[in-house]
């Protein structure tokens, strides 16, 4: 990409972003917008730095739930996808379920999970995140393990390769980019789910609870600051998954794939 192109691709969105913030700041002052409606960016930023350590604490709680769920969901998802690739008939059981669950707000299950565990446990939220991540990873990695180019399979069969060898040498490498695609979707989903789970009661240390409590105390600018913290948390998770993908696919010429 030429330098001018790079400049344009970065510069234009940058200008749009700055213009938007300037407009926001100006509109609040000019239209005298009430604080419970919209806080100006300047105030949000100052509240963010004022509350920085508390935001960090809350983010750690929500973030830890997301992380644990992300790892657990990925591990179980990958394991199950191997089972699926071996026992193809299970596919017709799991796939319709996964598709249906995609459409449904499954995070409401937290209400049920909260009952099954002690009231101070973070486990229900972690299980919820794991569930969400599990299905995303399962569908994508299973696709990667099974949808292999026919020519590759034919070549391996001509070498009288065993199923295990085909798995190791063809299916798994094929599935790796799918895993990272799944991670790029799961990482933000994990943060969102961890977040939303906090609205169902239980321990109140995470970002979600902080936002509601700040609003209840009419501290809207502070609430916006916590929202900013939440967005940063989600962004960090996403960026890490992108970095992981780049590290893993270096030199493999992998192509981009996606299923939700």
């Amino acid at each position, binding site marked *: 990409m030429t330098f001018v192109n790079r400049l344009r691709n970065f510069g234009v969105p940058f200008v749009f972003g700055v213009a938007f913030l300037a407009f926001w700041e100006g509109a609040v002052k000019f239209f005298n917008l*009430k604080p419970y*409606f919209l806080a100006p960016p300047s105030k949000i930023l100052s509240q963010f730095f004022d509350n920085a350590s508390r935001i960090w604490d809350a983010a750690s709680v929500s973030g830890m739930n997301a992380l644990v769920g992300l790892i657990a969901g990925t591990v179980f998802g990958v394991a199950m996808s191997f089972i699926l690739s071996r026992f193809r008939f299970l596919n017709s059981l*799991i796939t319709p379920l996964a598709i249906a669950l995609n459409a*449904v707000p499954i995070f409401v299950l937290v209400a049920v999970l909260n009952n*099954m565990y002690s009231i101070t446990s973070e486990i229900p939220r972690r299980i919820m995140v794991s569930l969400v991540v599990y299905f995303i990873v399962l569908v994508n990695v299973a696709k990667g393990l099974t*949808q292999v180019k026919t020519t590759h399979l034919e070549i391996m069969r001509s070498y009288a390769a065993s199923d295990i060898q085909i798995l190791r040498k063809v299916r798994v490498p094929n599935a790796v980019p799918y895993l990272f695609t799944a991670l790029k979707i799961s990482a933000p989903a994990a943060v969102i789910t961890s977040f939303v789970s906090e609205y169902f009661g239980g321990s109140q240390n995470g970002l979600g609870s902080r936002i509601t409590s700040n*609003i209840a105390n009419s501290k809207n600018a502070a609430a916006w600051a916590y929202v900013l913290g939440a967005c940063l948390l*989600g962004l960090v998770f996403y960026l890490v998954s992108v970095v992981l993908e780049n590290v893993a696919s270096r030199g493999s010429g992998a192509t981009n794939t996606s299923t939700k």
Partner: protein
Amino acid sequence: MNQQLRRAAYRTGMFFVSIALVAVLWELYKIVGPEKGGKLFGIAILPRSNDTAMPHIWEMLSRYAEPEMRSPNSKLIWFVVLKGAFYSFRLAFVGFVIGSTIGVALAALMTRFKTIERGLLPYLVISQTVPLIALAPLVVSWGGKLEIFGFTWPRWLSASVLGAFLAFFPIAVGTLRGLKSAPAASLELMDSYAASWKQTLFKLRFPAAIPYMVPAFKLGASGAVIGVVVAEISTGLKGGIGRLIIEYARQATGDPAKVFTAVFGAAGLGLAMAGLVALADVLLMRNRPKETTT
């Protein structure tokens, strides 16, 4: 067409089988699992298997036929849940319509003006990775307080707006991809006809975009539902299924099966929205060549 119907019926059938399997696993755990919950490798990860924490499946199902509350005038719970789910459905639908209209319009605008695409697209993409849902409590708090042109912002509108917000992003991004997917040769053809930009948009770009818009609309529909339900549960918005879930969850120690009725109701809500989009998918893609999918 017959083959399509058969496949759909098979898929639905298998879906119910897998649900039944989950139910079986649930009951199995109740039999073998520890009553007060337990530890696995030192982590308190095993849930309690007693009837209060995990009611039997048949208890959940039969609960639907019972009245909602113990008071004599209480309506049957299936009616209450259905009403709540329908209320939330209407909110989600409004949000979906708003979000998709703005999303599609913006996508068309971005196709026309490359600068707008350059400036906005990165934000649209990033917004899907960021938990915008965090704004839910803020948006709902506008209810009853905000006044525009003498019109007081009703609380339910916040839920729809949140739904619209979540639906907007995937729809805008997907529609943009679709509009840009028109083959260069076809664009040249329209040029050779001296067709106006509007004519090219409606006769070439939009029809070419439909295969991209359908999955985007599916994401948008589920986003609208999530937005509305989260708005409801984060602030207890009256009338919707989210509020019912929270209420019934609070009563779980006395009435464990109750919360499940509302949870299933929420699932039904999501499936209903998805069903609408699937219907549109079938209607719009009738005459298209069939893609080979597994």
